[in-house]
């Protein structure tokens, strides 16, 4: 993950539900009313980078400012859907950088089962992606629904698989160049 990587910057901006543990004077701007105070117990969606920073205050000896929650994209409901059939879930609608987001969230929460579910999902979908990449059915064939629901990581995977298959076909003389 490099500093200038667009995808990781976009992942940083994903919202994470946070609950404030303390009253914070003057931070009402986050809630949409500038100048006011934030009361303890308020739930606000904060960007990942901000929520992460505020929640690890506990390590410095002070009481923590916010507690984090698992975002809705990784909620129990979504996990159950992924367990049932990974191929039918529209990951892109949940979060454009779904796997990167879950990677970051899994750093914050210890969820062994979620890791297993996500790995399994990624694997199952990768196999499907490879099939689509090798036998493209065009923009209107079946599987469009699935391909539209790919997250950014999966799109890159699709592109790589498709390009290398195409290159090989060009070399073998089965396809025309460009």
């Amino acid at each position, binding site marked *: 993950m490099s500093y200038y990587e667009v995808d990781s910057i976009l992942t940083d901006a994903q919202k994470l539900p946070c609950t404030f543990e303390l009253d914070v004077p003057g931070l009402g701007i986050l809630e949409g009313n500038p100048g006011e105070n934030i009361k303890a117990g308020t739930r606000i969606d904060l960007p990942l980078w901000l929520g992460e920073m505020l929640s690890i205050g506990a390590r410095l000896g002070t009481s923590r400012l916010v507690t984090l929650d698992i975002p809705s994209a990784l909620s129990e409901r979504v996990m159950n859907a992924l367990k049932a059939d990974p191929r039918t879930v529209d990951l892109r609608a949940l979060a454009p950088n779904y796997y990167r987001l879950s990677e970051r969230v899994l750093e914050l929460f210890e969820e062994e089962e979620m890791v297993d579910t996500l790995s399994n999902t990624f694997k199952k979908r990768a196999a499907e992606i490879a099939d689509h990449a090798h036998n493209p059915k065009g923009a209107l064939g079946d599987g469009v629904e699935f391909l539209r629901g790919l997250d950014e990581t999966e799109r890159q*995977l699709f592109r790589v698989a498709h390009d290398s298959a195409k290159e090989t076909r060009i070399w073998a003389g089965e396809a025309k160049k460009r």
Partner: protein
Amino acid sequence: MAFPLQRGITPPEISFLAEMEMVTIVPRQRLEGLELLGGPVEPLVPPRRTTVPLWLASLLKRQRRANILPPPWLHPESLSLILDIETQHQDYQHAFSPPPPLPGQPRLRDRGRKPNARPRYTPEGQRYYPTPPFLPQNVAQDQSFDNGEPPTLPFHWLEVGTMLLDVASDDVVDPDQTRRLLKELREVRSAKIRSGVDVLDVAAVAGGGVALTGVGAMEIGEGRGFIGGVVDGLRRIGASKEQARREQLAAAANGEYDATQDYDDDMEF
């Protein structure tokens, strides 16, 4: 992306490397020996067979100065046998047909025997065991595969096969049939690579690995980006679990062993 080529090597590059494979030719004209960087080429005396690199063979063939003897595996009979192994044989439902045995490696039939490879020595006196691509796997053999050995596909099978069909289709037995079989083999095997995603999560944890025995150079080149991407994705997702596992291992090993013992099983083959 600024750099137009993706990581790894492109198909033309792979087939360029495959041009170093040695093949057997029957020269039609005399040619003095050549001193090349890759080793000397014997003088060509018709009609004595010689082995030359594929690039030289195809050059001579194009100039009608030689005929190429196709390797024993590039024969409709051998190819359909291999195709049978790939599709019908139970042991190879999800695996690739075995590569040619290395020198000293026991044959398929007596699998229990221990390998007795004889090491060779470099001019500096260092020991090494020759492996492909430094083994002649594409030279014509007299007693081709009548010794009961099933034919095997060499590392550069797709490239050598395609190139020979390109330049020397009149030397290959039944070129149309051969071409069709090569294509079929390629499709069967690339489907296997794609369905092999299931085992890739083993490669994403420390000490794990996936056997790619019998996979050809072009197939690796084609699958490199995808397989690498999948393994990387799985590694990222499993990173937190892996971290926890390591901490556990370190805690368990503390006092008894060094932390290095985690890596012990990496070294075994």
